[in-house]
């Protein structure tokens, strides 16, 4: 009997919540909004973090670009042979790629040219060239990311697309397939086609490439290899994946900084409410505690009731807020909020937030809200409950 959960006390607590409809509604509203905001931000952050880590991992270790007058020029494709001769270089691939501006939608696509007979610098490209022939029967084919497909569909390009070459003539490329995205950030805006088609669209010479990417057997040798390349080709700029990581991370941290601020603001609002609550109970609330004491409730009976009351209302709001955040972020892809985070992507095509379930996030939001609210309810009640009952009800 002593250990049985006291359903009457819980019923009383629920009644107490329902009796003060306006106040309870207000608390649930604010509480839900805050847990919703916090959880959404955390959900988006961990999704993007996951996304970025995956992107950064797939970056080439070394990129070699030709530089003239501080500007980036096409590089001779046969540089690859020399680079392969450097000790420690496992692989060197000349890339043909560039941005194609699609004026109808006002977005940039990344066009990547691949040669089916070469080694590919990315596993996902390897898969594509195995599956789809990029040149067949005198026709060119392309494989596009989902974002690209959507944009093209909107302009009624369902089976092919006419690229406008620099000289104003058209290059027709047929749609051969759609990407299975490895990570959303990188492949969403990508169009893969043959190197020849890509060169045609960008008006590049046959023996030229955009840049050369290297794979190094031992990551510790990157520095030595970089200085070797520099001595052989002084007219190059060499970018390592570590450099890229830093710049990616910088943009990302900057963005999460904004949100840290937002987070603090919401936390602040929350504390104002808490402060308001702890600064005193209404005279009815005090009287009620006094009455309960006068008819034989002990201090801990009162506090137990207040605990149930605040736990039920805050846990309800917490669950509601997390649930809404879940729907908002993963089902609706966080409209409005997402833009603030994904601003660094030049592409404005749709972008899927991958589902990353992070218990830490849920715990963090829980501990930032529920126990604080319970404490803020119980402490003033405890103050009143320990007064002489006679004083309170007089």
């Amino acid at each position, binding site marked *: *009997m002593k250990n*049985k959960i*006291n*359903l*009457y*006390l819980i019923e*009383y607590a629920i*009644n107490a919540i329902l*009796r003060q409809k306006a106040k309870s509604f207000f608390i649930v509203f604010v509480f839900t909004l805050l847990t919703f905001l916090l959880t959404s931000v955390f959900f988006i952050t961990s999704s993007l973090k996951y996304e970025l880590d995956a992107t950064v991992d797939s970056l080439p270790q070394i990129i070699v670009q030709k530089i003239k007058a501080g500007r980036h020029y096409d590089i001779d494709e046969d540089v690859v042979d020399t680079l392969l001769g450097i000790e420690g270089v496992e692989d060197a691939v000349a890339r043909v790629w560039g941005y194609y501006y699609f004026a109808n939608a006002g977005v940039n696509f990344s066009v990547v040219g691949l040669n089916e007979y070469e080694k590919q610098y990315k596993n996902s490209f390897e898969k594509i060239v195995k599956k789809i022939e990029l040149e067949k029967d005198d026709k060119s084919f392309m494989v596009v990311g989902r974002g690209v497909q959507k944009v093209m569909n909107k302009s009624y390009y369902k089976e092919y697309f006419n690229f406008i070459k620099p000289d104003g003539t058209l290059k027709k490329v047929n749609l051969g397939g759609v990407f299975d995205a490895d990570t959303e950030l990188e492949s969403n805006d990508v169009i893969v086609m043959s190197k020849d088609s890509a060169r045609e669209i960008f008006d590049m010479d046959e023996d030229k490439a955009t840049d050369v990417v290297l794979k190094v057997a031992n990551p510790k040798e990157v520095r030595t290899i970089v200085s070797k390349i520099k001595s052989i080709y002084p007219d190059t700029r060499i970018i390592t994946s570590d450099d890229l990581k830093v710049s990616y991370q910088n943009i990302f941290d900057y963005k999460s900084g904004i949100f840290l601020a937002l987070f603090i603001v919401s936390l602040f609002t929350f504390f104002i409410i808490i402060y308001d609550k702890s600064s005193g109970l209404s005279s009815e609330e005090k*009287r*009620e505690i*006094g*009455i*309960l*004491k*006068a*008819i*034989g*409730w*002990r*201090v*801990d*009976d009162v506090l137990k009731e207040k605990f149930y009351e605040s736990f039920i209302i805050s846990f309800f709001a917490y669950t509601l807020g997390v649930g809404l955040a879940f729907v908002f972020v993963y089902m609706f892809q966080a409209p409005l909020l997402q833009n603030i985070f994904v601003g660094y992507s030049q592409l404005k095509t749709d972008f899927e937030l991958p589902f990353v379930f992070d218990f830490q996030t849920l715990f963090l939001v829980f501990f930032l809200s529920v126990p604080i609210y319970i404490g803020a309810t119980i402490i003033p009640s405890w103050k009143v409950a*320990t007064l*002489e*009952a*006679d*004083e309170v*009800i007089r």
Partner: protein
Amino acid sequence: MIELKNITKIYEINKSDKVIALDDINLRIKEGELVVLKGASGSGKSTILSLIAALSKPTSGEVIVDTKKISKLPDNFASVYRRDNIGFIFQKYNLIPTLSVKENIILPLVPLNPDASDIQNKLDIVTNRFNISHKENAIVRNLSGGEQQRVAIARANINDPKIIIADEPTANLDEKLSLHFIEILRELKVLNKTIVVATHDPLFFGLDFVDREIEVHNGKIVV
């Protein structure tokens, strides 16, 4: 069974302002006795009731109930003492206006976590005895003054306490309802409760079933 020994109660409003509500009083009330405390407003009647119910502590002196020094009880024990021994009918009833009649009446039982059948039995007894069973599900706020008082009386009796305390029970009632309350008092007397009523309503004076009338004046008992 109730004994007040050399009780003084001083309320300190602030450092310089003190009210001597009770001034070294002595009082004994026997088991089953019905005592009416009378006296002008501010004479100290309510203060005596509070002390007997352990709702407040004397500045000096002792309150002894059934050999227990209740004036020395720590807060939690004082609560349990009230729950088990005292049925207090407050002047302003002290009901929770937004709860139903039933919920108000069973309130003293809630911390005990009793079985539903136990609660129902006790509830049936008091609602029938004090004639409020037909309003069990009504919200207290919507009841008339007389009905609210019957709810307060039912709540005071739900634990079948030995001691019933009533503070100005007829202050908010018309004469008809006041006479009705006096009948309830007679019934409680028959149930052999020890009863202390504080009032200045002349209807209580000279009643045949009242054992003693005690006059309080300026914090002292008039002999």
